[in-house]
């Protein structure tokens, strides 16, 4: 059994992990935050790939970011470009794709690149939480 515990403390409260949600729709970021916050995660937001890259490179996020949930169709730096950046620069941070457009070819290609899950909106809260939990396990394994 690993002694490593991904959780940390935010404002005195125990936290299951830190998740970055990348989506150009504020509504999507809002509901994902709502769902994951209830499940005890600390949620950061970015409105496109460019902001997401800025966020992960900012301060302690470099070390403490556990999971990235990323949309595909976004302005500036889109999801595909952002995911390529994360895989290259942060290969240990698990990625979940949350997209509005189900595309089998794209899903296959992204999963081959190491994306943990390819979720199509609208996704139920339980399914999203289960996916993040799986990603967290992978994150913990990466620290072994």
């Amino acid at each position, binding site marked *: 059994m690993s002694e490593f515990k991904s959780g940390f403390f935010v404002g005195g409260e125990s936290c299951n992990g830190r998740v970055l949600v990348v989506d*150009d*729709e504020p*509504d*999507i970021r*809002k*509901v*994902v935050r*709502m*769902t994951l916050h*209830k499940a005890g995660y600390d949620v950061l937001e970015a409105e496109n790939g460019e902001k997401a890259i800025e966020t992960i490179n900012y301060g302690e996020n470099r070390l403490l970011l556990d999971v990235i949930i990323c949309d595909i*169709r*976004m*302005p*500036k730096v889109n999801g595909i470009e952002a995911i390529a950046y994360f895989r290259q620069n942060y290969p240990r941070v698990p990625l979940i794709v949350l997209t*509005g*457009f*189900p*595309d089998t070819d794209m899903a296959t290609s992204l999963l081959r690149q190491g994306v943990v899950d390819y979720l*199509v*909106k*609208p*996704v*139920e*809260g339980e399914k999203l939480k289960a996916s993040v939990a799986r990603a967290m396990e992978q994150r913990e394994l990466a620290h072994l």
Partner: protein
Amino acid sequence: MTTISPTMSHRQTEHQDSNPVPAPPPMRVAIIGAGRGGVALLDALHQIRTIQIVGIVDLNPSAPGLKRAQELKVPVYHEVADLITHQELNLVMDVTGDPAMESALRKTVPTGTDVVNGQTSRLLWLLVQHESTLQTELLHAEKLAGIGSFAAGIAHDMNNPLQLILGLAENLTDETDLEAVHLQAHDIIEAVKRTTAICRDLTSYSRRASLRQDCLMSINGKLDEALKIARYAVALQDIDIRKLYQPDVVVKGNPDELLHVFVNLITNAVQAMEHHGTLTLETTATADATQVRVTDTGSGISPELLGRIFDPFFTTKPPGKGTGLGLYNIKNVIHHMNGTIGVESQVGRGSTFTLIFPNETVAGERSAQS
């Protein structure tokens, strides 16, 4: 070997041939009868470059073909003799269906001029009508084929509000704060309205072009409507859109068909820019003409291809990605509106499509309305 500078601008209108062979003199045609047959012939023949309609005649001054002839700047005559003598005609087309006219023409038409009348004339009219139906069907088929490319955009725009609705509804199952319940219920209602708006826009766009009579419409409004539809086909989020609209610019035509024209031009422009660049939509109205310009900063069109872009089934897209009928249909719609379409392009710099509609009819309608 001749090389062409990539910065050199090339122009092309649908009236120009890519290969400049000396054109034969146009066939000079006169139309007798300005009823339904006369209107159909005018509409068909005036689009053919090698035909010159010398004039149309009808004894009834309120015959619909005479008004149409004025719109097309075709000379109108009130006496048959005035039209068919001293005009060096190649062909007289009698669409009156009147046996008396048939025998009168036999006597008066000069030698060397052919006459089409009776059942031959009726057959021609039927063929013209059939061709017009085929063009409408082709336009609709091409529009429906294009809607396939909307799938990604529709899915994005439908599934995002659905995600919000699902997430909020799940949260409401155990939300205890009454104020939060009210706010989230309100957000759900707004999200449902957004999804219904998408369905409304698309069902309206995908319907068959209405057969209602042409009407005056705001060009600026149609361009804005087209932008809303085009964003399902192409990602506009990284496109800088510049609208240089002159206020209150109107044009006469079929609103459904013009919307389709603008959606196609905007979609082509964005695809040429590979989703990054500036799209400029410009409308101007002068005393002579109303003009619409759609400019992109994309890859441009090479001079070798420029002469073929309005040809049917010409496409540079991979199989299954384009029908090659987009610009061909656009050209037909613009012609029906008595307008012209031209393109200027520089490889590596971008393209501008210019639509010009003569203003005479618009001005006439305006004064009639006021």
